[in-house]
């Protein structure tokens, strides 16, 4: 009987462990958010994190967006040509890019670039006692290290995604006009006719949520890392993996929330 119940016990333990981690992350996030609104404010650290998120991630996000828009145009043409519906390609590109691809791909790229760096930096600070040193210097580590990064992630990713939206549509336009023979004016007219304000708003909201998640996972795993270089490596991996999974999960939740009928 005991052997039969072993898988159940294992599942139960795993579930409880997952719940405890989720609770721990929620408390960490709530503390981080509360410090955003309480002085002292570390503007220099916010600006540094913001530049890291927005400016230095721009090339990788831009390239991802352009190529994604180009691929969508090509793939949808291949499919829609069979049904004589190629005029819908501009619509497909703009909806795919603005509603989904730009925020999700920008989020994943930033998770790999900034989230990993954040976890590695905070993890190294943890294992070399730098976080403890902050405490002894009358500085709250959550306020100094976590709050500026959470705010920067939440505000920077929407800006990046607006750029990615534009460049993704431009990628589709390049393929549409240069390779597939669309008239440039007609392609752009179709794009703007089909695009709704709500699409852009949702794109920006998703980006804000994803930026927060990337910063939260980077900070949480780095801040709580243990065990020297191995621990810092594990924290970095966990930050990227957990942020990526959360981005995809929250993408579904937000899409359901805004677009499900």
């Amino acid at each position, binding site marked *: 009987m005991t052997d039969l119940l072993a898988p159940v016990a294992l599942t139960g333990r795993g579930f409880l462990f997952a719940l405890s981690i989720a609770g721990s992350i929620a408390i960490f996030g709530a503390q981080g958010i509360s410090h955003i609104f309480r002085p002292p404010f570390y503007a220099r650290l916010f600006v540094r994190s913001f530049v890291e998120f927005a400016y230095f991630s721009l090339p990788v996000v831009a390239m991802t967006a352009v190529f994604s828009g180009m691929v969508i145009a090509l793939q949808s043409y291949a499919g829609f040509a069979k049904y004589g519906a190629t005029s819908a390609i501009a619509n497909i590109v703009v909806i795919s890019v603005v509603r989904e691809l730009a925020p999700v791909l920008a989020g994943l790229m930033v998770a790999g670039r900034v989230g990993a760096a954040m976890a590695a*930096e905070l993890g*190294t600070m943890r294992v070399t*006692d730098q976080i403890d*040193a902050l405490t*002894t*210097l*009358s*500085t709250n580590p959550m306020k100094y290290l976590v709050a500026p990064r959470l705010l920067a992630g939440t505000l920077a990713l929407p800006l990046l995604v607006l750029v990615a939206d534009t460049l993704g549509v431009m990628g589709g336009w390049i393929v549409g006009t240069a390779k597939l023979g669309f008239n440039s004016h007609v392609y752009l007219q179709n794009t703007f006719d089909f695009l709704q304000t709500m699409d852009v708003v949702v794109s920006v909201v998703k980006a804000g949520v994803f930026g927060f998640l990337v910063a939260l996972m980077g900070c949480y795993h780095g801040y709580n890392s243990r065990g020297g270089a191995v621990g810092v490596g594990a924290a970095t991996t966990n930050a990227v993996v957990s942020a990526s999974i959360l981005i995809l999960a929250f993408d579904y939740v937000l899409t359901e929330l805004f677009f499900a009928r």
Partner: protein
Amino acid sequence: MSARPKIRIRGLVKQFGGKRVLDGIDLDVPEATSMVVIGGSGSGKSVLVKCILGIIEPDSGSIEIDGRDVLRLEPQEQEAVRGEIGMLFQNGALFDSLPVWENVAFGLLARHSVSRDQARARAAEILSEVGLAASVGELYPAELSGGMQKRVGLARAIAAKPAMLFFDEPTTGLDPIMGAVIDGLITQCVKGLGSTAIAITHDMASARRIGDQAAMLYKGRIVWQGEAKHLMESGNALVDQFTHGRREGPIQMELRR
């Protein structure tokens, strides 16, 4: 010596998992006295200091500073107490992303709302107190040798003229001459500021140089306390074995736990 100790610890207990690292610590540190805590690796020395600093929360017991139990203070009051403390970490724990001058002036900028220019000038003064040129302030911690990092760590610890100073293995990883130099600087800073100090170390030469008093931690308890100059002839079997580095004696090396 005043009647009331500056730091008074009673019945301090801290357990990690099933291991009781601190098992009822009682320790008094009189004002303006330098107390050295010795003990083997894993004996709980660092945990003791981290409990006093408020980095680790003990399971039970009391830590009184100037007669007030800091474990029962409001967070803002605890913050104020921490403002009176300077700490030199074992590996320096300098902030990699900041230049040396900003490391040294970090506490000043955090606590006293001085301008960055004023903080920079003050950092240069403090660096000179620990024997470093002002130009070192423009370097980053990764560009410094181990001895220089310790000096910068010491400069950061004394920058706000704290009433209490803590030193975690201040000479570990340094050659004997540099160790003596750091000890000299520590003694000079502690006496100069009139601070109360606690240093934890394995280094017996260092312990005798910087300590007025000494205590030995073994299996989570203070097993001996006395004047640091008597460390080598304490008459306590545990202390004698430890200070003379003898393999035979009451302390048995635990190879596996």
